[in-house]
């Protein structure tokens, strides 16, 4: 078995004295879907944001694809990576946000091409061709020239997924991708994510959609108050929860 895509060992993170992550251990196997569930404020999003270094973790070891996130070990010293190296790391990790965060001043097509052209240096015509191909994949042909404010929330989130995929990431992070959507629009986004999982993309999904977690996830982690309370295949974690806290959480969300 090859090395895991993401490996966390005792990851800690505090915001101004409040400890949000209190020693998290997590392993994400290549090509698998991992779902993070838990009550709000449990540290799910923070963990996700540490993985692509949007937040700096304070202590512990966090590796993506074998490399330490944000640091380089040379001899016995950890060297903080410079901005350029961190940007290069991030470019290989796609992220989808709860509130889509599409670039409001750019058309749908430009949203998907801007990263390819400016970060990866892809030729503009090739970037456009790839963007059209991805738009077809998420079922949004013909929306190229719309601005984000002119399409629905579900469509915006699918564009956001296409924007992340355009960078050809080795790992995709989803931060509550359907929480800001009207109920009838949730399905179209989950369908795209399901297809993506079937294509073999390694995914970490913070979600409250237990149905999606049960059906698509290989592993489910339950976070509570900054620690992993329970983990394992969805059948076990969601089907026969052991800890009291998970039982009470599931009784509220299901």
């Amino acid at each position, binding site marked *: 078995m090859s090395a895991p895509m993401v490996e966390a060992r005792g990851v800690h993170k505090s915001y101004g004295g409040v400890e949000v992550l209190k020693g998290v251990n997590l392993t994400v196997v290549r090509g698998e879907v991992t779902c993070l569930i838990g009550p709000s404020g449990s540290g799910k999003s923070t963990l996700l944001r540490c993985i*692509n270094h*949007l937040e700096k973790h304070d202590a512990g070891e966090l590796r993506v694809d074998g490399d330490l996130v944000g640091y380089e070990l040379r001899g016995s010293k950890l060297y903080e990576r410079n*901005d*350029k190296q961190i*940007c*290069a*790391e*991030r*470019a*290989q*990790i*796609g*992220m989808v*946000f709860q*509130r889509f*965060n*599409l*670039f*409001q*001043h*750019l*058309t749908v097509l430009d949203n998907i091409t*801007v*990263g390819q052209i*400016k*970060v*990866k240096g892809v030729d503009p015509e090739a970037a456009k061709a790839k963007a059209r191909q991805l738009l077809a994949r998420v079922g949004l042909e013909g929306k190229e020239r719309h*601005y*984000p*404010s*002119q399409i629905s929330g579900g469509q915006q989130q699918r564009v*956001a997924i296409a*924007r*992340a995929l355009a*960078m050809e990431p080795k790992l995709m992070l989803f931060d509550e991708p359907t929480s800001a959507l009207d109920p009838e629009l949730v399905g179209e986004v989950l369908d795209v994510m399901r297809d993506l999982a079937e294509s073999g993309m390694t995914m970490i999904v913070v979600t409250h959609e237990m149905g999606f977690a049960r059906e698509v996830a290989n592993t489910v982690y339950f976070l509570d108050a900054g620690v992993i309370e329970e983990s394992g295949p969805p059948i076990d974690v969601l089907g026969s929860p052991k800890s009291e806290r998970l039982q009470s959480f599931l009784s509220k969300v299901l």
Partner: protein
Amino acid sequence: MPTNGDTEVKVVPVRHYGQWVAALVALVLVAMLVNTLFSKVPTGQFTCRIVNGTRRCHEVSEWRFTWDIVFRYFTTSEILHGLLTTLELTVLAMTAGIVLGVTIAVMRLSTNRLLSATAWSYTWFFRGTPVYVQLLFWFNIAALYKIFTIGVPFTHVTFFTLNSVSIFTPFVAALVGLSLNEGAYMSEIARSGLLAVDEGQTEAATSLGMTRSQTLRLVVLPQAMRVIIPPTGNEVISMLKTSSLASTVSVIELLGAATNISANNFETMPLLITASLWYLIVTTVLSIGQFYLERHFARGALRTPPPTPLQRLGRDVRGVMSKFRTRRGVAGAAP
């Protein structure tokens, strides 16, 4: 069409009698003002001539506003040169002010304390002293610094030296003073624009692997422009008028040219009007430009862009027409 059960009924709109009275009063006052603009006043002098053996006298009157003098000087080369200088000062000082302002705003938002403190001090100093004082200061700078030297501080190592009298001509002094002062105001405007852009935009750009400068240039600034442009338009118009202070440091701009002429012919009021009319014309042109610039940067922020004045006029005309049609239709349909 409103109905009462099955039968259509006539709609009587609310009559705003108070508004009509107020509008009438306003109209009368405007008419009075216009009347004074084009009226004659008695001079107290009389001319007499003899008609059919009798002496007839009448009082001489003259135009209150001597519009002929206003327009005689309107396009003289002196006034036009002054106008050109005013425009040069406005454009150059605003350009420098915007560049300075954005730089200071980015510095102010930096995580580096020294940079942000420097930016804060800059704004504090240049916003805290009158622009008129600043102009006089740069005009008299040679009193403090006879020469400008670039070198290593606290040593005798110098790279090159400039004579301040030769650099700080009146025009340069005015330009530097106006630019530095404008930079302080623009930095606050730019900062408010940068802060108005949702943090999620920065996060999304960062997660795509953009560097901080790419995020600023490609994502944050273009969206900040929507917030920055209206107050910047205000600043441009303000600068156009503030540049008249340059006349106090012997730059002959629009107002300077007008006062120069009136110092010779004593036609103070007509020449002030000449200058004012030019300021109004340029302000009008600038306002139109601002409208289209705002429309351009509203891309994506609004589902439908605001109509241009021509489109709005067309819509109003169509609206009034259809109102008349509906009224007649309702009236005709009512029993």
